[in-house]
């Protein structure tokens, strides 16, 4: 989008960019409203020990409070007693600086971010199959030319409306759109075929699709032999997934499984995409692997116009997971336990490699350890609101309250900021330069329209301030100031060097080059050389260049329904809200469009429960409860209820969600748990 500022204020204008083609949803159109929003924080807040309330404070006072607190806690309990929590909305520069600040500023191993709740399952499955994790290994425009497009647990019509323009083009070109979703979503309504499985059974569906592809002879044996490894084990495991077995588990009719397999197996250009519906499970990695297996068996990845990809969930969901705010990761998508990676990054940072801490723990585990005897006692939060967005949120809220020091950098007083000891007001998207990397692995520029208002600092400036103040003496402070520049261009230049040679190699990407083209696709190792719009055309990013199959089996949800909690509960987004709603719940037009939480349930279920449309209902799980008005819809299975997760307080859906996590990715099981529903 393009912003203009005049006497009337800042206005948003769509931009004809190759990804959105001029499309904007209501969230984009109204985004400028937040710049001069009356609730915007313009001064730091510090909790008054006497009254227990947050009071305005000077930056000096606020930063001193933070630094004093960190010092005391680290002196007492060691560097790991301080933790950092980042966000997938931060620019690449900020994500990079935050990871660096945690490792060599705070010297803690404890940093992770809310992208763990978003992209981590697809990332892990992509890494183990392809040796690299880029949401789409091909330009988005390929969607418009696909003969068959399978969307698994994706609802772009409500989560990413401009993307639907590609789906419209795809169908206008005669392509077939197949959507897998437990609800008849706005996206599913546009599909040629909609599979409506029970939540948590996408893996069984995928294995049955591959089973059918095998029995129908649609497996690309030549591709499998030349470009992959490990097919035998997968072939044997899916031999046990005859379609009727998956039908009984998922509820998807065999005929629909067959029609889907046929469209995938006999189409020319075929794309399979997963999103949170398939990924936010305690078996999320295996579920994605099942679809990757299917794609590999059909010979899709690396074939022109075909492939597997995942749809990113946050503004910088891709770049945010590449530059070191993940517990196990260093910039350039390097592993923190890889000696060569440590050596390289430590060299760029000017510290000995053995001074870098080791891997931390994934987001939920980190949040759940806060304030416990062995867990961190201080937490610094940037660009995240876990009180609303974490699973089993009531418990996480208690953990945050148990901290000795909670510091939150945000632009509004989010529910998490409201619990903080120190709140630091930060700049918004239109007030800072930087880069974001979109789902295509395309690095894009964000340009500042105007400076932040007085009293507000950028995240980079806050990190620089903290690093300097944490230094033990003047010399060290000078040193820290050099290490943590507040200027994003300087940070990006360093990010390029740190990422050089890594999987997500930005070495050849300059801001000027991004400006000259419509973004630059990583990997892009040299300024002279080309970037990489399409991955995998010749080889995969594995040591031998072959993609890896992984045999995976369906398993039940971490929590199954029972007599006391007889219904499946699943969560998702609505069009007019975004994530924890810290921003969108404060925009008048969006509030009008989607003011409050609701509980979507089937009229038959509602009838049995004596619930009418609009009645207040209570949803209860073993972990908590929330209340919201009932919204009756024949588009949801009668055994499943749905609520959006954007809302706080009594309508907080995450009060009931399950904190079981995927053993590989650490992804919590947001998408299915057992509840009971009653009239409130």
């Amino acid at each position: 989008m393009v912003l203009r500022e005049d006497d009337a204020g800042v206005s948003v204008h769509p931009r004809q960019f190759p990804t959105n083609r001029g499309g904007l949803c209501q969230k984009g159109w109204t985004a400028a409203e937040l710049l001069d929003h009356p609730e915007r924080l313009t001064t730091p807040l510090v909790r008054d020990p006497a009254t227990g309330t947050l009071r305005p404070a000077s930056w000096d006072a606020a930063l001193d409070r933070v630094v004093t607190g960190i010092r005391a806690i680290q002196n007492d309990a060691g560097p790991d007693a301080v933790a950092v929590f980042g966000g997938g909305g931060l620019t690449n520069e900020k994500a990079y600086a935050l990871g660096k600040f945690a490792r060599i500023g705070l010297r803690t191993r404890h940093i992770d971010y809310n992208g763990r709740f978003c992209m981590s399952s697809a990332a892990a499955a992509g890494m183990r199959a392809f040796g690299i994790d880029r949401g789409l290994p091909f330009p988005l425009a390929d969607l418009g030319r696909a003969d068959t497009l399978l969307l698994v647990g994706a609802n772009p019509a409500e989560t990413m409306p401009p993307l639907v323009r590609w789906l419209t083009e795809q169908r206008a070109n005669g392509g077939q759109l197949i959507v897998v979703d437990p609800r008849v979503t706005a996206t599913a309504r546009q599909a040629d075929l909609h599979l409506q499985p029970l939540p948590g059974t996408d893996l069984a569906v995928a294995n049955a699709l591959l089973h059918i592809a095998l029995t129908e002879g649609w497996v690309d044996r030549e591709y499998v032999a030349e470009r992959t490894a490990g097919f035998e084990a997968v072939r044997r495991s899916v031999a046990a997934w005859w379609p009727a077995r998956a039908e009984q588990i998922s509820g998807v009719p065999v005929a629909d499984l067959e029609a889907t397999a046929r469209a995938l197996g006999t189409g020319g250009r075929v794309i399979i995409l997963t999103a949170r519906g398939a990924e936010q499970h305690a078996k999320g990695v295996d579920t994605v692997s099942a679809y990757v297996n299917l794609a590999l068996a059909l010979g899709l990845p690396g074939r022109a116009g075909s492939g597997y990809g995942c749809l990113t969930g946050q503004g910088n969901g891709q770049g945010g997971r590449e530059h070191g705010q993940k517990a196990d990761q260093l910039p350039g998508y390097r592993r923190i336990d890889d000696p060569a990676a440590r050596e390289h990054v430590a060299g760029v940072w000017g510290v000995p490699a053995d001074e870098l801490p080791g891997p931390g723990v994934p987001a939920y585990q980190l949040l759940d350890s806060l304030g416990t005897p062995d867990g961190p006692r201080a937490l610094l939060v940037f660009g995240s609101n876990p009180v609303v967005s974490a699973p089993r949120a009531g418990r996480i809220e208690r953990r945050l309250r148990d901290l000795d020091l909670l510091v939150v950098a945000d632009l509004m007083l989010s529910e998490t900021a409201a619990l903080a000891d120190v709140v630091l007001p930060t700049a918004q998207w239109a007030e800072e330069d930087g880069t974001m990397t979109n789902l295509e692995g395309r690095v894009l520029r964000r340009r500042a329209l105007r400076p932040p208002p007085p009293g507000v600092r950028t995240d980079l400036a806050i990190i620089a301030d903290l690093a300097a103040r944490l230094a033990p003496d003047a010399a060290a402070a000078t040193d820290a100031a050099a290490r943590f520049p507040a200027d994003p261009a300087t940070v990006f230049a360093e990010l390029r060097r740190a990422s050089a040679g890594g999987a997500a190699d930005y070495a050849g990407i300059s801001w000027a080059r991004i400006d000259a083209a419509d973004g630059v696709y990583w990997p892009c190792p040299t300024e002279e050389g080309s970037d990489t719009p399409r991955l995998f055309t010749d080889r995969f990013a594995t040591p031998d260049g072959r993609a890896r199959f992984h045999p995976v089996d369906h398993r039940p949800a971490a929590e199954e329904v029972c007599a006391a909690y007889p219904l499946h509960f699943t969560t998702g987004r609505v069009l007019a809200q975004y994530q924890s709603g810290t921003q969108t719940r404060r925009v008048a037009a969006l509030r009008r469009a989607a003011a409050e939480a609701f509980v979507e349930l089937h009229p038959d279920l509602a009838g049995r429960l004596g619930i009418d449309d609009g009645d207040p209902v209570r949803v209860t799980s073993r972990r908590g409860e929330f209340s919201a008005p009932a919204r009756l819809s024949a588009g949801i299975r009668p055994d499943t209820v749905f609520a959006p997760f954007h809302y706080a307080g009594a309508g907080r859906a995450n009060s009931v969600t399950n904190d079981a996590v995927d053993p590989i990715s650490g992804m919590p099981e947001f998408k299915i748990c057992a509840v009971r529903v009653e009239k409130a």
Partner: protein
Amino acid sequence: MTARVVIVGNGMAGARLAGELHAREGDRKVTVLGAEPHRAYNRILLSTLLAGRVDEPDIELTEAAGHGIDLRTGVPVAAIDRAAREVRTDDGERISYDHLVLATGARAVLPPLPGLDPANLPERVVPFRTLDDCRRILAAAAGARSALVLGGGLLGLEAARGLAIRGLTTTVVHPRGHLMERQLDPAAGAVLAGTLADLGVTIQLAVPATGVAADATGVRLDLADGRTLHADLLLLSCGVRPDTALAQAAGLTVRRGVVVDDQLRTDDRSISAIGDCAEHDGVLTGLVAPAWAQARVLADVLTGSDPLARYRPRPVVTRLKAAGIDLASMGDAVGGGPGEELTFTDPTRGTYARLRIRDERLVGAILLGDNPAVGTVIQLFDRGHPVPTDRRALLLGRALGTAGAAPAASPALMPDAATVCQCNTVSKGALVRSWRSGARTVDAVVAATRAGTGCGGCRDAVGGIVDWLSQAEAVEVTR
């Protein structure tokens, strides 16, 4: 915890149990003795193999290996020595067990027909049960042009469809009045026979066979009505019988199958039985789902991961799935008794549905042909969930009631509050207001309201409203 587990049988049940044990914690030695020489394979796929749609490697199953699993194929067991807690193989080897599991499966029943010596079957007469049977059928089918299938049950029909796909002229001979009489009512059987006929399989009903004669050139099947059928190949699919010989010889209680309790134990506490050879609560399973459920329970009990686990049979769903045939049968679909009954028949298109409902629950169903709700019906039956208030949903599936509101025929009939653009929450009223404020083209209306700037899906609707407003220009726009 049990240290040495010996599993006799490497079929669908035995191999599954080995996998279940393998997946659980603990040190134990598991020996699997498979009589067949092959890797574990998926018996369900044999008819697909028969159809030539997959090759033998494609029906292999994942085998638990290593980590204390000793898999030995081609090792038939001759006897059980309960006193010594040993099994003796055909080769005379003795293998000790702390716990023995019989997963010996079932054998094909050979009909007592003149000319048919079970000990010495002619080359062109083959039962249909094992991979070796399948190989023999395929050998006999090579160069053959026609086949007879004796037995119109589930397996016989799947096999017949497979042979027809291979290009053989195939005839099914069934002694009963309609096909699959255990799962279907006569009406469904008739629709199924019609579907099969369309797929090139001829059905001869209500006629027992009376004799078989085979030589190097062909097979002759004599029928009770005096007719004689000739073909290049005769496939026998006349049911199966639990293989209980070892259990019987060892003195275990055997009725139709090896009798087991809720923990799958025989009357010897050191011996269990699962799968087709086992009889639980008077019932033989004969299907994969219950066999796998038994394997899971037994693994829980043997490893101590859930020592109190009990096998609880679930209602059985029978699914015939062959190219061009879609049939599901479950519960008591044909019995009488109180309750509601829904039926739908469209023989021309091969569709038949019969559902029986009592106390808002499905007690049985037959769904044949194109029934979009089949997945829903199976889940409702399997889980005992209440049926939809509008029973038609059981026949029409998601086609019913889930489509979005139908677009109003004319914008004039659309209420002002109706949302035209979801992405930007723009109502018809807002579009009309923009028109009144001077926007006179689609682009101008879009610029004023942002309708159509998100996913773009409502562009046509916005265009329609602008057209309507243009035409109504002369008329007062009142709404």
